[in-house]
């Protein structure tokens, strides 16, 4: 399943890029499983996603929690709590 990942603020800086397209295997069906798969790839992702409770997620521009189901071609935004206004 191909997922477009986009990162913002501290997450973007830790990972060192603002986004990437990833092909996940069939064991990845939800946001939490995508994070687990990415953390297994190395130190950078482990640091960026070590405290998912302190992160926020958006699937196709809508806020979701880590149990949200992914779909082919989805855009998953991963970022810290927002601080606008």
């Amino acid at each position: 399943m191909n997922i477009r990942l986009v990162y913002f603020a501290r997450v973007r800086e830790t990972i060192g890029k603002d986004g990437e397209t990833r092909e996940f295997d069939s064991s990845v069906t939800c946001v939490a499983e995508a994070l687990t798969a990415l953390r297994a790839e190395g130190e950078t992702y482990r640091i960026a996603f070590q405290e998912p409770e302190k992160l926020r997620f958006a699937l196709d521009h809508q806020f979701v929690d880590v149990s949200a189901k992914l779909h082919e071609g989805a855009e998953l935004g991963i970022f810290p709590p927002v601080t606008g206004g």
Partner: protein
Amino acid sequence: MINTRVQAETFDVATESARLTSGSRDIGALVSFTGLVRGDAGDTLTLEHYPGMTERMLQEIATEAERRWALSGGLVVHRYGRLSVGDPIVLVLIAARHRGEAFEAANFLMDWLKVKAPFWKKDADGWVEAQGSDDVAAERWS
């Protein structure tokens, strides 16, 4: 209708207010809120946002305000990019027949925007941390 805009450029409250109320005969109240950059002289603040999602969330918040109150019109402008101390960041303008609805809707828009609009502030000390008090303020409208 409450229009929403995301832009790098500054905005002028008087110009936007005049545009919103021009030609209208049923607006009895216009509430305006402007958020400014705080800090010491020479400080800068950089605002990052999530293009696409930001516009969508601002419009969703505006639509919810229209659903809750009888409003004549409104405007939400939020800036991004590099700003200096004293620069305006965000504008909420709400027009209604009476002040009660206008004040409440403007308050609501800012409270929801603080927790739902995907913007992130970075200053000289690094990324600004989200405030728990903002979540509490937003909760009172649920």
